[in-house]
């Protein structure tokens, strides 16, 4: 029997990917929409948010000063829980900082076209996240004024060197390398757009500023010639780097002998968790940003959906990690290990009654809920296309990933080998303001970035549009360019609501 045209169209519609760019764009419109807002006067909402951000940053400063002036005693840390918020926040931020490089590097290598509209954005987020993370390793030491330079191998008058068997030394190299590389990668991509800003600005002094920032870039073919390769190589470099960084962070735990830390599964599961939280953070920031910067035509539902899929995948990996830890702890028959995980889950504690009374059990289950249950909503097309859903989900995932680090760091330590030293950890106000403060500092930097730099890699989008033109991709599915607008119309309500939130 014959299949109706409508049905065939519907079927194709379901299979065809959503468009990467919406509306009929050319370089001119792209310049207007992607660079234009830099010249617009800052809105009230923006000012308000920056204000809040700065207040939080002030709080952060206070917390840091107090910590350095009085000592780590201002935190809740104790023996055996000698690491707590400091390290949790460090790992959390570093993890978040993984999405940027991943998107821009790995997706570039895989030639995923959809990366172009979000990579700049994600890279900036990476930088600012790593900046937060970088605060903690030094701050959490007892004597930061020494840590700041004793951790580097320089010839000192006492002839003593750092100890390279320590994962902390690996951390020092990994984090600093990661930060520097991401910064350079980001800036290299930014240069042509800075030139574009220089040339599109009306004020001469502004043109001067951007002129200097762009090092006098003039888009010469001889430059593009090297530029393409250099950019590609940096991407190729950043890919193993991004994997190495969280692997090394996971060594901080995996290399130790603490039950709950000494896990061979850590490196992959940490990297997956990092990507997971990173994408969640990109999502959290992107959903409102694309609305207020009017970027919907370049950051389309297709991008959002792709991110949802990645989050779903990584959440599955993470979930598998959780499962394995608990399984192995039982399978290995190691009492300390078994107790460790029984004490986390609070159920199936075998002979250890006391394991069921741990005050931290809810945090473990919150983690499971946020990182395993919540993301499974992305199995549905609805979940992947409804911005409300993905936005709230992404926020919950950020919470969940923080909990994961709490579970690993604090819960493992407070129930280690000798029960005689077991104790409970309670954070102090300094701990909390450090967490809150870094979040504010992060958002402040991000808002400034959104205001003064192009949030989308303009030159790459132009290039993409050009490619699409030449490939006549758009001509293949004229009717879908209409259909594809659909999900955006659904959002109208949400936009107003979000605008409300900011006013």
């Amino acid at each position, binding site marked *: 029997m014959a299949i109706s045209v409508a049905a065939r169209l519907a079927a194709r519609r379901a299979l065809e990917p959503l468009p990467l760019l919406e509306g009929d764009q050319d*370089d*001119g419109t792209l*310049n207007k929409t992607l660079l234009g807002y830099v010249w617009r006067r800052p809105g009230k909402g923006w000012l308000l948010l920056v204000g809040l951000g700065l207040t939080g940053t002030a709080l952060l400063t206070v917390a840091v000063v107090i910590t350095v002036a009085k000592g780590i005693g201002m935190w809740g840390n104790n023996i055996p829980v000698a690491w707590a918020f400091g390290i949790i926040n460090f790992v959390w931020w570093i993890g978040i900082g993984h999405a940027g490089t991943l998107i821009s590097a790995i997706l570039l290598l895989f030639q995923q076209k959809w990366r172009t509209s979000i990579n700049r954005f994600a890279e900036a987020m990476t930088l600012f996240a790593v900046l937060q993370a970088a605060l903690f390793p030094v701050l959490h030491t007892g004597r930061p004024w020494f840590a700041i330079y004793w951790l580097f*191998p320089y010839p000192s008058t006492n*002839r003593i*060197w*750092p*100890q*390279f*068997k320590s994962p902390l*030394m*690996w951390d020092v*190299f*990994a984090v*600093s*390398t990661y930060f*520097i*590389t991401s910064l*350079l*990668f980001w*800036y*290299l991509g930014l240069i*042509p757009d800075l*030139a*574009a800003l*220089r*040339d*599109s600005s009306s004020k001469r002094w502004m043109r001067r500023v951007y*002129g*200097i920032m762009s*090092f*006098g*870039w*003039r*888009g*010469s*073919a*001889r*430059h*593009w*010639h*090297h*530029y*393409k*390769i*250099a950019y590609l*190589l*940096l991407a190729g*470099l*950043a890919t*193993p*780097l991004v994997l*190495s960084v969280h692997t*090394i962070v996971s*060594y901080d735990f995996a290399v130790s002998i603490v039950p709950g830390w000494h896990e061979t599964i850590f490196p992959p599961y940490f990297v997956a968790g990092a990507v997971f939280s990173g994408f969640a953070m990109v999502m959290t920031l992107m959903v409102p940003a694309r609305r207020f910067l009017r970027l919907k035509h370049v950051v389309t539902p297709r991008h959002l959906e792709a991110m949802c899929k990645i989050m779903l995948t990584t959440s599955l990996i993470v979930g598998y990690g959780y499962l394995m830890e608990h399984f192995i702890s039982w399978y290995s028959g190691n009492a300390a290990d078994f107790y460790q995980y029984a004490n986390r889950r609070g159920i199936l504690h075998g002979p250890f009654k006391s394991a069921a009374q741990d005050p931290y059990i809810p945090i473990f289950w919150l983690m499971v809920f946020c990182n395993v249950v919540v993301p499974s909503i992305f199995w549905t097309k609805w979940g992947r296309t409804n911005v409300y859903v993905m936005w709230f989900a992404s926020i919950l995932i950020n919470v969940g990933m923080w909990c994961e680090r709490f579970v690993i760091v604090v819960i493992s330590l407070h129930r280690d080998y000798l029960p005689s030293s077991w104790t409970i950890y309670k954070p102090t106000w300094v701990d909390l303001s450090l967490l809150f403060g870094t979040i504010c500092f992060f958002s402040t930097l991000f808002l400034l970035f959104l205001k003064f730099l192009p949030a989308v890699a303009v*030159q*790459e989008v*132009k*290039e993409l549009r*050009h490619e699409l033109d030449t490939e006549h991709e758009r001509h293949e599915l004229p009717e879908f360019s209409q259909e594809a607008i659909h999900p955006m119309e659904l959002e109208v309500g949400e936009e107003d609501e979000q605008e409300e939130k900011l006013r």
Partner: protein
Amino acid sequence: MKRLVLAEFASPEPMVEAARKLRESGRQGLDAYSPYPVHGIDEALKLPRSKVPLMALVAGLTGAAGGYVLQWWTNAVDYLINVANRPAHAWPTNIPVTFESGVLLCALSLFFGTLFYFFRLPRPYHPVFESEEFRSASLDKFWVSAELKEGEDGQDLVRTLRDLGARRVTQVAEET
């Protein structure tokens, strides 16, 4: 003092075409400018293969080697200490730092090398900037520049460019 003729094109293809024609006509000191890398311009201008990968490779290997030697020398040679009964020179523990230092040096070379050596930047002033219209080169238009020889007035060059489809042709001179 250096003099240039600048020609603006609306889209990449005619620019590439014009560039090729000029080169084939044996003109020296050619260059093209575009907001994003344009396909085909490289061979149009017959640009030699880029040395960037070589530089990156050398830098990366140097970094890695340096990183490894540093660890080995400091912990196993210069001040050998019994740390937890582990071998003083334990190569597996040296892998992370070796890798990271390799990446670091490679990245630094890629950024600063290309910027300062291959691009000869920073260069806030360049003759092309003498023309206000040239601003479009980083936004949405595509330019070709050709250097004028001593005493050449360049009228014919202007004409050829117009014939090649340039929407706008100007002549700039390097300020001294």
